[in-house]
């Protein structure tokens, strides 16, 4: 919980977190090593200096640490944990749903675990998805379209098999499709950033929500154009938000464009934990005001109400979370610590 100076409580749902394992003994090859090294680069470049972790901690922080960073030291009331497999790079996977369930076990009322699928798994993968959905009661999945698989360098949401998976997801009640479209790793060329495939599937699957993580940066212009036409496309702020610390003017530009094109009802906060921790992100976001000239030029504002939506209300809507009921459940939990 975040409490404003006037005492108002703001319910925080962290829409994008991970519990990964990139410890040395889990790394399968140089790609796995370079992948986590690159994440650490993001972490150390955009975090405030006093928030930079030692590399060993970053490689494998574990569920207990994650619990503290999100819910004890951090302001998160709830967190959505995304699963990413990367089994070509990590022996037991990067952050599999089993691994992510460790944090769910520590805070069952606070954590939503999302699954994943990959259309290249073919028909067998459809059954696996069904099994995963019933075991974990999935409401969402995370897709990583640029993931390597053998000789394949990724897939598109418009591939026929991807359609089968999306149809299956809809049947299984998995209505939130988080798609990594951003400063992606492993692109052979910049087409891996392309957000155009989201446009097609968003039109064809009106009952699904498509949350484009990282707002398609660095293809923000294309993303905004798609999102403005499709009512079921949302923007996840992970990676865009950390710029608030070291590149405030830049963040101002990005958030004002997003508010103009998508509006305050379509944006979701995400820390991208463990790349960044939610405490400083939420504090800086709450303290942030759009400059008057930007408000006038773009005709947008980032009011307290808009911040509340971005930090929790929008995700609550997508995931059918009853915030009042949730507050009571959390208050009843023994490990609660109100974040001022």
């Amino acid at each position: 919980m975040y409490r404003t100076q006037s005492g108002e409580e703001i319910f925080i749902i962290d829409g994008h977190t991970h519990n990964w394992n990139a410890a040395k003994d889990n790394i399968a090859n140089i790609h796995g090593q370079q992948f986590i090294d690159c994440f650490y680069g993001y972490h150390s470049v955009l975090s405030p200096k006093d928030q930079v972790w030692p590399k060993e901690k970053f490689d494998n922080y574990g569920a207990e640490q994650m619990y503290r960073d999100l819910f004890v030291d951090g302001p998160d009331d709830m967190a959505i944990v995304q699963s990413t497999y990367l089994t070509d790079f990590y022996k037991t996977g990067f952050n599999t749903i089993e691994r992510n369930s460790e944090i769910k076990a520590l805070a069952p009322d606070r954590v939503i675990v999302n699954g994943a699928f990959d259309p290249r798994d073919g028909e067998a993968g459809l059954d696996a998805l069904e099994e995963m959905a019933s075991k974990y009661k999935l409401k969402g999945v995370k897709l990583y379209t640029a993931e390597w698989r053998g000789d394949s360098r990724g897939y598109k949401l418009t591939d026929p098999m991807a359609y089968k998976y999306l149809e299956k997801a809809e049947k299984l009640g998995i209505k939130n499709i988080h798609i990594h479209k951003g400063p992606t790793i492993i692109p052979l060329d910049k087409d891996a950033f392309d957000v155009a495939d989201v446009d097609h599937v968003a039109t064809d699957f009106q009952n699904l929500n498509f949350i484009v993580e990282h707002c398609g940066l660095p293809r923000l212009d294309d993303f905004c154009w798609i999102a403005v036409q499709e009512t079921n496309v949302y923007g996840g702020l992970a990676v865009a938000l950390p710029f608030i610390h070291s590149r405030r003017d830049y963040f101002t530009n990005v958030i004002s464009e997003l508010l103009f094109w998508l509006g305050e009802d379509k944006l979701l906060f995400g820390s991208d934990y463990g790349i960044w921790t939610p405490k400083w992100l939420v504090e800086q976001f709450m303290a942030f005001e759009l400059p008057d000239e930007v408000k006038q030029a773009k005709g947008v504002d980032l009011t307290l109400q808009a911040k509340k939506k971005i930090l929790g209300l929008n995700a609550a809507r997508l995931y059918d979370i009853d915030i009042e009921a949730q507050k009571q459940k959390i208050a009843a939990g023994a490990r609660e610590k109100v974040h001022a």
Partner: protein
Amino acid sequence: MSLNGIGREAEVRRALDRVTDPELDEPVTDLRFIDRLAIEGDTVSIGFRLPTYWCAANFAFLMADDMRREVAALPWVGHVEVTLGEHMYAAKINHGLAHGLSFQDTFGNEASAELNELRRTFLVKAFQRRQEALLRYMLKHSAQQGADGGPAPARTAEALVSMTLPALKTLPLDHDGNQIRSRYLDRRHICAAPGEPLAFVDAHGEPIAADSLHGYLQALGRVTINTEFNGALCRGLLAARFNEDGEPSLADFARMPARTA
């Protein structure tokens, strides 16, 4: 022309100054991508590195190709070797470069875009970004210039979109303005047809309507947002990867004048 070693190295560096990272629109030398330069007789060996192991292979290939082309154009150079280090495709790219293969031939089925198209796409983005910087600069600074007692050309939208190229070239500007103008003029030919009298045209070479200038600038601004995103990450990641001094400095972002929108 100096033919001693130091003089030749300086010539090579100047040639490399003309090679830009296509997406960031900054010289590979300023970005500190070049990490080795050796000259032996008429052979020049250049080593370069990128911010991450994962940087897009087509961009790496394009920059290497540009480096080879610029340096090979020096009259005393007979042979140029360009080598990429610490990259997931280093072996493949270096093999392609050493054998004079195209990007397509180097990557076969994995490559999906022709390099020349890609080069053009990013030159247009560079044009747009540089033009936005200049237009915003001129809109912002018109008032001050009049107050200094110098000539005060009316920088209304109408005046800007109808300004001729010679008028732009001879316009008195301060130091920053001068730099922003020359950066734009260096890329103007990407979109302006030869002989085009107007100083400013859009990406299709068409005149810009005065009443749509505001919206036009907003659209260009989104190109800049993408570029700056990459720029901030790339510089930071390079520094982090090779343990060089800390964060990118403010100067990295000073190329765009402050937004007054």
